[in-house]
């Protein structure tokens, strides 16, 4: 196993193919980030929604008690 490029600049340019190769790897990074983050963010959003609902239910229960009193 050895590194196939002489310098970092050569690694970036990839003998002219650099733009193609790096564009693909950047796109892959974006796609994978989307795949990883979207279920996480969705769970977070559902938790927030539940918390809001619970709070609302509590307030309504409190209001009902006050109305009775």
């Amino acid at each position: 196993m050895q590194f196939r490029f002489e310098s970092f600049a050569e690694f970036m340019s990839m003998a002219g193919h650099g733009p193609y190769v790096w564009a693909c790897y950047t796109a892959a990074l974006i796609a994978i980030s989307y795949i990883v983050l979207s279920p996480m963010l969705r769970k977070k959003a559902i938790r927030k929604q539940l918390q809001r609902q619970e709070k609302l239910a509590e307030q309504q229960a409190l209001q009902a008690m006050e109305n009775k009193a």
Partner: protein
Amino acid sequence: MAWQWFHRLGSPKWFYEKTNAWMPWLLSISLLIIVSGSIWALGFAPLDSKQGNSYRIMYLHVPASIVAMAAYYVMAIAGAIGLIWKMKLSYMVMKVAAPIGAVLTAMALFTGAVWGKPTWGTYWVWDARLTSVLILLFLYLGVIALQEAFREQEVADKASAILSLVGTVNIPIIYKSVDWWFTLHQPASIKMTSSSIAPEMLYPLLGMITGFYILFTWALLASTRSEILQREMKTKWVKQALLEKV
């Protein structure tokens, strides 16, 4: 007795609790493999004598394409199980497989087009393989759109399942397109029996394929778990599961 596991599997709560422990492992292992595989592919894999450095795109293109099709199997089979046994969990798996499959298919198309420019001299041709994969993307988008189109979840699930099953026709066409219409896209280089690819190039590729499969497994489970939480939001166990761990 023998079918007990099958009925249990149909229970979203059981599924959610069972998969809980796997999630961090699947994600960290897959990301570790993909990151190290990419470094290997970009810097350490030998140069291709014909294509030069552009072939390093293969390490993204091939795994994305393979798993994009695997995602379709999962979606269609889950849809069939949902239709036959009316299993809600199965419909949820079908629904969440569509956006993951769409992203992977888009990635396969994009990397393919960018790879095509230096190799074939063009980003796109109406080659049979390219066209059938484009249809795969539209099938995924169709399922996503159907899910959004109906107010009743049950109707949306049934319609998506039928579209998924009908679209299965496309899968053997994708596989065989490179042999039936030998136009531009090359046939498969890796086969079970023999591979026409050097080992130093093959190992990182097999690594990337494994990494993508594990990432897909994680994403499918994670999205199904979110879908379960959404659909069962009114139940006690979901409230407990979500509100206690804050």
